[in-house]
């Protein structure tokens, strides 16, 4: 349990470092749903660096599959449930202007009132859903 906390803290530190680097280099918030959503039409925006960001993110997954496959856990749900979860996450993050990264890390760090409300809300509905459905380790 104690090592699990230390990995979580170290992983969080890397996420914070990456987000700070994106602000220093591009002046942008490292919000995954915002970056991904702005690649979809109709926004006429600069796609190249956003695509590069996702190539880097994907590379981490490819490397993990080769050197530390247990870091990526198996699904706890059926494919149908996972598809429903994906639809809700996609629709909800765009409607709510952010996800765990944009609101949770960047927004809370700026003490944004919108992000505080968003984080409290998605934590509450996430906890409610997981508590009702269960299936965690």
């Amino acid at each position, binding site marked *: 349990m104690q090592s699990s906390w230390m990995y*979580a803290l170290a992983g969080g530190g890397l996420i914070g470092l990456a987000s700070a680097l994106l*602000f220093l280099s*591009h002046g942008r918030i490292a919000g*995954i749903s915002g970056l991904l959503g702005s690649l979809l039409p109709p926004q006429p925006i600069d796609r190249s660096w956003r695509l*590069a960001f996702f190539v880097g993110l994907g590379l981490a997954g490819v490397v993990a599959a080769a050197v530390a496959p247990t870091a990526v856990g198996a699904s706890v749900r059926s494919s149908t449930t996972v*598809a429903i979860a994906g639809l809700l996450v996609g629709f909800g993050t765009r409607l709510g202007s952010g996800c765990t990264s944009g609101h949770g890390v960047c927004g809370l760090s700026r003490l944004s009132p919108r992000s505080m409300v968003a984080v409290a809300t998605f934590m509450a509905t996430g906890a409610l859903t997981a508590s009702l459905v*269960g299936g965690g380790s």
Partner: protein
Amino acid sequence: MSATVTGCGARCGVASALLAGLVGAIFGAGLLLGGMTDPAKVVGFLDLGGAWDPSLAFVMGGAIAVYAPLLALVRRRRQMPWVDTTFHLPTRRDVDVGLVLGAAIFGVGWGLGGLCPGPGLVSAAAGHTSAIVFVLAMVIGMAGQHVWARRGG
């Protein structure tokens, strides 16, 4: 756009892409190390009943502990970022129905599948079929919201 406005041409475009790629790789490594790519662990964190595992709170805590002071430092020390002419910080402060409703819907999806957008993408790139299903559905959900919003939502 950022490459052209700063006046450093293609060289800046390459730097912009390389830096963004590096950021993505570090971000992905952080998600993997922190345990965010393990749906069972995420659901165990969100499920307050039974053997609650609070360790994932340290991912957000660790990220904020690093990001908040660095963000303040960059804002104090620099007039503009490296490859753009201005910082793009959100300015809205109003809490509207869309924000709350959207966050509520996202939370249900997160608690259901145990994946949020970043970990979903990393797990899909690692070749997990269920994560690929998740990402495809997520993109459809995003596109659906865009269409809905343009029709006056």
